């Protein structure tokens, strides 16, 4: 069944121009963004470039923290793509036709989870390749141990982008229209959840979905300006995100299962 669902999603996505435009834009912006971020690692004093030791963006093992943090700003592009793919299926009656022709409703959700895994996998591989491309020449005496030292950021990155896509999936299914779903995703993540933070005690705020997803990768630049950074243990972020992913996907399935398609 997974092979069949993947074949169906592959035809829909790989023949969709927006898929290639958005993924190309994502890839270029990720590499370019990381390249530009390296500029913060040096300052020019009297015409000479001086390295700031704290900003060794291209050096293992800190590279993964900087890279995954910077790449995190681009999660909205795969989220936009997922919203387009889901709302296409709903708006053009493709889900209706799939059910009529013999797919279970669980398969409709499962097919998009496969697409989410594909997008998250691609983004993670791109991050790894970008990290290696910048890190190997940028790190003196790079060793496998150094490269793998902070590899949990990569796992966190994968879970984080998958979780963001789950949120996008929720808005796409609930709103059914691409523009409104994208706006609601942005408004929720940028405005609504931050407002809720004001009314919740700090510890509870962590359990809000976007906060849980963001907690994988703290802002690496904050320590430079002297701000106190409280790192969330990886396992806490992982389980909080996992619980949200399961709850959100379960909610989507219940919605699709019991409503008309």
């Amino acid at each position: 069944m997974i092979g069949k669902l993947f074949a169906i999603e592959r035809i829909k996505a790989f023949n969709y121009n927006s898929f290639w435009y958005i993924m190309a834009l994502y890839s270029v912006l990720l590499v370019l963004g990381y390249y530009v971020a390296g500029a913060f690692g040096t300052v020019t004093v009297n015409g000479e470039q001086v390295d700031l030791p704290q900003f060794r963006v291209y050096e293992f093992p800190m590279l993964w923290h900087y890279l995954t943090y910077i790449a995190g700003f681009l999660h909205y592009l795969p989220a936009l793509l997922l919203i387009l793919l889901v709302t296409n299926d709903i708006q053009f009656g493709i889900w209706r036709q799939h059910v009529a022709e013999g797919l279970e409703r669980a398969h409709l959700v499962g097919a998009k989870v496969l697409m989410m895994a594909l997008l998250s996998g691609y983004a993670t591989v791109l991050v790894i390749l970008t990290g290696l491309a910048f890190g190997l020449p940028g790190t003196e005496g790079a060793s496998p141990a150094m490269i793998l030292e902070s590899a949990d950021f990569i796992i966190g990155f994968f879970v984080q982008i998958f979780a963001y896509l789950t949120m996008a999936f929720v808005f796409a299914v609930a709103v059914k229209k691409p523009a409104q779903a994208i706006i609601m995703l942005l408004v929720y993540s940028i405005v609504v959840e931050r407002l809720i933070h004001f009314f919740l005690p700090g510890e509870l705020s962590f359990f809000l979905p976007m906060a849980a997803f963001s907690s994988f990768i703290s802002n690496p630049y904050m320590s430079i300006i002297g701000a106190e950074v409280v790192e969330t243990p990886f396992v806490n972020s992982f389980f909080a995100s996992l619980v949200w992913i399961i709850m959100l996907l379960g909610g989507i399935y219940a919605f699709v299962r019991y409503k008309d398609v």
Partner: protein
Amino acid sequence: MTPTLQIKRLSRSYGSIRALDDFSLRVDPGSVYGILGPNGSGKTTTLSIILDVLRADSGSYEWFGQWPSAGVRRRIGSMLDRPNFLPYLSAVKNLQISAEVKGAGHSQINEVLEIVNLSSRKYSSFHTYSLGMKQRLALASTLLGDPDVLVLDEPTNGLDPQGIFDVRSIIQKVADQGKTIVLASHILDEIEKVCTHVAILKNGKKLTSGTTREILTQNDTLEIAASDFDKLQQSLKDIKGISDIARQEDIIIASIDDDVDIAELNAALISKGIKPHHLVRKKQTLESHFMEVTRGSQ
């Protein structure tokens, strides 16, 4: 004989509107069953429920004597109320998706496109198609996987006369292979020409059902006029197979059975000294019966 489709007391409401009300139907193998009704009568709701696209509020249905499942639906070629395809994909790519869903393989795609006469446009994007071409592509999709049953919702919607003729020919060809077809339409002529059975729906309720022949041959009408109306009216009462005799201005309207020969009737009247100057047998069309039935329900 296990019915291909058995619908038991389905009901469905949209808010306060009762779209389908206690609807039951039995469709036997090999029949072409028409569900006829005006717009908003519950036809699309019925077909959407039996294809699991809509949820019924109450009632049940079985396909091939089995509880409906995704596996059962893969034996059905379905054309919903509008052609559901991705606009940016070509006909071939859209049909590849349908073939994957049905587990049908891609080898039949060219064949079904040939049947619906879309081969020359098979690589064009769906959004460039006319409404008629979209309908024909939807019909092609139903044929993938060699299904046992076709469920078609308004299959000739938006087609020009040639397109209507072509689609009906395809449906007839499929029916001739012994396959079962469930067809919803508001076009009486379509039901009359294609279907072996018909159910008439109005406001979500089934008004009548049976073979198309039964419904068509009910109450054929005799129009007759002669100079001596009273004698004519009296003589008609004595003739077997003539009933419901009523005078309307200068003409008599009556029901006439199938086995009454109009020439013999004329001869019988002449032998009684009545010379009809107007004698017409009007076959009761589905349209007139439909109007009669639906008027009766108001």
